[in-house]
Every structure is written in structure tokens, then in C-alpha cells.
């Protein structure tokens, strides 16, 4: 999971806080020094460990380099690989398909459960559900995947054992066309608690009288959900979508431990190609190119989501 929570568009736009301590004491140079000292660790750190590497990554993407011999200018070859090389192309298609399916499932499951938890029930029960759904978030994706690998094992896995109880044949979960589905399930199993929390917060913010008013109008159940809940929770939905899309685009741990990208390339993801190109095949230029394309993808999708949000998100 990722901590990369995003500020809302409005937060990002607020670059000037209302007031500051303009009256503070001391000569100007001293104040400047203090400001510099406050900011230096973060600004220098981000500059050295994020900005510079981004620039270097873009530069490296135009070279062929195995670290042992000298780098060789490769022009756009590495980028062409993303479009042409069947493995790289497949990994991007996998990643995009994964994002669409996993995020849709995650949002549906977490919103559904959040709505169910919001109903009237003893508070200890609500706390129980909230804690349970939150729990997988604190586990490491690697150890969750280790566990799931056993559960989904074809020969001695618990999942197939349950299937056999109801008379269904065992499925080769991790070694056939099903493996992508398992990766999605394992990912969503661990991640839905996050969007669930967001929705619990978003739903709690909807004033009760809106529901009461609509109940008087005769709206109940499904229609109430569609006409009241969904629009009013849509700002939360935007943030949930943006954050889970960014995190899903970076998927690596689960398929790495569960399937190593297989069978075939069916669960190979973009980040896996970055890792394999760089540290298994010593193709650092190609790894960088894949990284740069992934970065562009993340930024593009995020921008698109915020654009769409202007049309579909309902602000009270």
C-alpha cells in the first residue's frame, strides 16, 4: 500500500494561508536564515532524492547501459520498446487492465460495505467491522501474498478444498488464465479497507435531514442510494479513485510473490519490467524508459480524473 494520499484540488490551489506572523522580530537576514533552515532538509532532500533522479531517469532513458561497459546513445529505441516489445507492451496493458478492474472492484466493495456499516447498529459492532476491514492495511503485501499463494495452491490450497466441498473441480489459480484474477483479488482484499475508511468519513458528513427529506418524498433503499448517497459522496469518490488508481498503477509486490508475472506474461506489470530490466538483465536505459512512461501515465490519468471531476463531482 502507499501513503501517497492526495490533497484535494482545492487544497493544492490554496497556496497562501490566511495570515502569518509578519510581525516577528529580528533582522531580515536572520529571518531568511531561519526559513532556510526550516526548509532545507525537506527541499534539499526532495531535490536530491526525487527531482534529480527524475531528471536523470529521463536522461538515462535515451541510453543503452549495462553499468559494466560505457553507456551508448540509443535515441528513442527504449521508448519504442514500450510500444513494440511484446513483453513490455503486454506489461503496460496488464497494468492498465489491472487498474480498471481492481479499482472498480475496490470502490464498489468498499462503498457497499461503508453504506452497510452506516446503518443503525450497536456501536461496538460498528467498531468491530471498522477494525476488521481496516486490518489488512497494516500487513505487508509481501507476507499477504505468501499466505495467499498457499491458499490458492492448486494441489493443497484451501480455496480448492472449499470448492471440492461443493462439488466443484479444483482450479489452477496461479498457473492458468485465472492468475490475473487472483492478483486482483489479493490486492483488493488488502486495499479495500483504505477506500472503505474514506467512504465511512464521506458518508458520515452527509447530514441526516437530507435523507429524512427524501424519505418524505418516498425515496428509499436503492433509489435513495442513487439519488442522495452517490452524489453527496462523490467528492470522496474522486479522492478515492485518484488515490487508488495511483497506488494500483504501481503494483509489484503481489504479482512478484504470487506468480512472478506468469503464466506467460499474463501478470507481468510495468513495475516488474522496471525491476527485471534493470536488476536482472542490466538494461538500465530500458528500465528508465519504462519508468518515464509509467510516470507520464500516472500524471495523465490523475489530470484526467480531476478534469472529469468538474463534470461529475457534486459539491454541496
Amino acid at each position, binding site marked *: 500500500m502507499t501513503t501517497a494520499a492526495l490533497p484535494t484540488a482545492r487544497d493544492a490551489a490554496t497556496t497562501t494561508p490566511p495570515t502569518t506572523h509578519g510581525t516577528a522580530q529580528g533582522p531580515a537576514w536572520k529571518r531568511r536564515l531561519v526559513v532556510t533552515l526550516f526548509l532545507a532538509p525537506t527541499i534539499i*532532500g526532495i531535490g536530491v532524492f526525487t527531482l534529480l533522479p527524475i531528471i536523470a531517469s529521463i536522461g538515462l532513458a535515451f541510453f543503452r547501459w549495462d553499468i559494466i561497459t560505457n553507456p551508448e546513445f540509443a535515441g528513442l529505441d527504449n521508448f519504442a520498446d514500450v510500444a513494440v516489445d511484446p513483453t513490455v507492451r503486454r506489461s503496460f496493458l496488464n497494468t492498465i487492465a489491472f487498474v480498471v478492474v481492481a479499482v472498480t472492484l475496490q470502490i464498489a466493495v468498499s462503498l457497499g460495505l461503508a453504506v452497510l456499516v452506516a446503518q443503525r447498529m450497536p456501536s461496538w459492532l460498528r467498531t468491530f467491522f471498522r477494525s476488521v476491514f481496516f486490518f489488512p492495511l497494516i500487513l505487508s503485501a509481501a*507476507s499477504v501474498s505468501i499466505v495467499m499463494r498457499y491458499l490458492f495452491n492448486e494441489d493443497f490450497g484451501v480455496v480448492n478444498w472449499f470448492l471440492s466441498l461443493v462439488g466443484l473441480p479444483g482450479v489452477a489459480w496461479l498457473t492458468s488464465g485465472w492468475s490475473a484474477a487472483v492478483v486482483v483479488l489479493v490486492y483488493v482484499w488488502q486495499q479495500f479497507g483504505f477506500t472503505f475508511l474514506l467512504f465511512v468519513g464521506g458518508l458520515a458528513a452527509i447530514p441526516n435531514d437530507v435523507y429524512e427529506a427524501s424519505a418524505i418524498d418516498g425515496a428509499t433503499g436503492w433509489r435513495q442510494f442513487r439519488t442522495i448517497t452517490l452524489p453527496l459522496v462523490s467528492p470522496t469518490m474522486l479522492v478515492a479513485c485518484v488515490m487508488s488508481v495511483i497506488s494500483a498503477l504501481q503494483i509489484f509486490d503481489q504479482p512478484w510473490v504470487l506468480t512472478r508475472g506468469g503464466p506467460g506474461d499474463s501478470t507481468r506489470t510495468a513495475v516488474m519490467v522496471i525491476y527485471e530490466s534493470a536488476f536482472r538483465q542490466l538494461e538500465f536505459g530500458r528500465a528508465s524508459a519504462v519508468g518515464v512512461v509509467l510516470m507520464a501515465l500516472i500524471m495523465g490519468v490523475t489530470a484526467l480524473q480531476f478534469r472529469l471531476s468538474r463534470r461529475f463531482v457534486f459539491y454541496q
Partner: protein
Amino acid sequence: MTATALRTAPAPRATAPRTRRRALPTPSGATRVVILLVAAALTLGPVVWTISTSLRSPAESFTLPPQFIPTDPDFSPYAQVFQQVNMGLLTLNSALVTGVIAVGQMLTAALAGYAFARLEFRGRGLWFALVLATMMVPVQVTIVPIFMLIRGIGLSDTLLALILPAIPTAFGTFLMRQYFLGLPLELGEAASIDGAGVWRTFSSIYAPLALPGMAIVGILAFNFHWNEFFRPLIFSISEQNYTLPLGLVSLQGNLGTGSISVVLAGVVLSMIPALVVFVVGQRPLRAGLTAGVSK
């Protein structure tokens, strides 16, 4: 994808009948609790299975049907974990890495967050936007240059290679800025009038008040880096520098392990600190995770 569902609310149709009849069947109260209970069982099931299977003898660990309640616990898998991997060292490494990152993030984010929230300087908006923009760039994209950088400063295959690049935090800075913005302005003004400088105002007035916010940053960092897999996989070459997730995956791969229960015992052991965080820090963790939307 889901955005199409988000059209703003049309007015409820006036002709809607005032009965309890619905266009689509929706679950009743009891059914809803049952659905929630099933979801909870699916969520907890793998965890319970992990714990109970880790308490089976290695020879029995492949045997079906699965056991969800350990009736006859066998602790030998735990002993074997300690024989096969240096659990103490793995835990120490994970604790050092996460601890230093968490404290480092709390301090640097508090300083920078305060500067962005409460200090005036030229280009503040620009700097802040720059910091925010880096939040979207995943670490995988920059991993190769960071690797070179680490090599350049001679920190290859050390824990510091994991720690240093993780301390500067855009998200933590954003969080702390929001936190400081939420604190009353008057306190600082009063201090200024009393003659306190910028540092004094920060250290004796605002920093103590911002401790809960710093705790959120720290717990988030802990949760993320305790479970981190990708960077250790690349940066930690010697086994002496492995962190827990890496050690566990290697426990699974080491030839001759031959037992699920030993691997799962390792998983359970690694879960303990996370469990402590879960019990102690669930509230701030939840607050932090949802902080992006709280406004």
C-alpha cells in the same frame, strides 16, 4: 470509470408511490449485518488460517481439511523460523529502518510544514507546489538513479541506503502544513509580542501542539516502511541487511524448508509489531490515511 455514476441528483420523481415498495430489492437490516459478517469472515479468514496453520507440525501443514482453530498447537515451526533466519537481526533492521525514517520524517515534515504554513518568504507557493508535485512520482520510476546516487556516496548495501532517501517526505510536509494551519494564530502573535523569535515561537508554542500531527506522520511512515518490499529487494544485498518482508520471502524460497507452517510462523512473527501499531495507533493511522479528504 466510476465517474459516470456521479451525476448530480435529479429531483425525486413526484409520482413516486409512498409505499415501502422499491424499484430494486435492497437488503433488510438483518441481511445487511449478515453481508457484513460474511465480508468480515472473508477478511479475517486468511489471517486466522495463517495463525492456526503456523501452529501445526511441519509434517501436517500440507494436510487438508484446513484447520481454523488450533486444537493441538505445535510450536516447533516457530523454533524452526529462528533456526532458519536470524529473526532478531531482521527485526532489528526493520525497527532501525522504520524508526529512523519515522522520526526523521516527523522532524523534517514539522519544520517544513511550519514554514509553509506560518512563515513568509518569497516563492512560498512555488516551492510548496513543487513539493506537492513530487508526491505523484512513484519510487519505482526513480529507483535506478537513486541506486547510482547511493553507490556514489558509498552507501551501497547498507541500511542507510533505505533510510536516507525516505526521510524527505512531501506527503508528511503537506500533512503538517495542514495541521499548523489548523492551530490558532493568536498563540504565535502573543509570543511575538512577548519578544519570541521564529524558532522560539515554533519550538515552545507550536511544535508541542503539533505533536498529534507528527504522530500521524510517524505512524504512517512506520506502517509503510515496515511493510516495504520493493526498495529492500534492490538495496539490501547482504542477508545481514535484510528487513522482515524480504527475510520472509526468502524463508519461503530457501531450499529444504518443506513446510508451510514454518513460513507462516515467520509471517505471524512479523505481524506482531504491526498488530501493536493496530491496537495503539489505529486512530491516528486512520486519521492520517484519510487526511487528504478531511477538508
